[in-house]
């Protein structure tokens, strides 16, 4: 056991007004399993005082389209890392596209995520917005899908084009998912 005369106080390094760290994550996937990495890392960044921008594009639009965001799916098809609930047994790829496999796999994944106390996608987005995170939708994806702001989750701040995104993310660290 050591004793020190100077008080040991954690350094939160949070007094760097203006010059702080900034993270931008491009969410381009709409499968349930691929929705989470961006949300989890983004949320962690906010908890560390990092400015966060999530940019939804292509298939990632399903995460912010109101009529779809509650119902993302997970498929074992094409995913050789999908195992049976017990042990290291892989689900044979020939069985993966069978009827009933996708709902079962989705149900299992949702349960595993809920068991960890991790929210579903809409609740997670709400938490991120409440924590000060910014959500942006991709202009080209919106036009391709004939989607307007009315169709999008209310936390989305705007539909922006690629140049806007580049401007907003000046000086940011970038992740493409």
């Amino acid at each position: 056991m050591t004793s020190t005369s100077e008080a040991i106080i954690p350094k939160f390094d949070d007094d760097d007004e203006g010059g702080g760290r900034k993270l931008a994550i491009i969410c381009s996937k709409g499968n349930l399993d691929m929705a989470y990495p961006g949300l989890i890392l983004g949320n962690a960044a906010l908890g560390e005082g990092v400015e966060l921008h999530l940019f939804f594009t292509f298939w990632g639009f399903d995460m912010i389209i109101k009529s779809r965001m509650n119902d993302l799916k997970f498929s074992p098809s094409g995913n050789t890392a999908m195992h049976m609930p017990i042990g290291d047994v892989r689900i044979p790829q020939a069985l993966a596209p069978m009827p009933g496999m996708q709902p079962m796999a989705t149900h299992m994944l949702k349960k595993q995520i809920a068991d960890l106390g991790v929210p579903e996608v809409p609740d997670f987005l709400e938490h991120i917005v409440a924590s000060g995170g910014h959500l942006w939708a991709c202009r080209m994806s919106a036009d391709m899908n004939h989607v307007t702001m009315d169709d999008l989750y209310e936390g989305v701040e705007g539909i922006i084009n690629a140049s806007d995104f580049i401007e907003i993310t000046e000086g940011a660290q970038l992740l493409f998912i």
Partner: protein
Amino acid sequence: MPVTTIEGHEIHVDDEGFMTVYDEWDETLGAALAGAIGVEMSDDAWNAIRFMRKDFKEQDDVTPTLRRVSTAGGFETKKLFELFPKKPAKKMAYIAGLPKPKGCV
């Protein structure tokens, strides 16, 4: 394990300064810890800290994450960011005399 002194309270801490002995904490010390990291303690802030302490015990010594403070404790996330700016989960854990939260969400 280092021992440090915060405003006359002698406490066991980890290398970063987070307290390691739950029962060494009381509210006077909590106020001193808050002062040490520049957090002003309002009634709302105290309620959140009391929830942290209570939930830690009830969950078998697991520090609640920010998400848990908001869902199980009923504190608004936005409000927590105002009360404990920038790094609410870590600051709350520090003031409440608990280890840093381990959960990802």
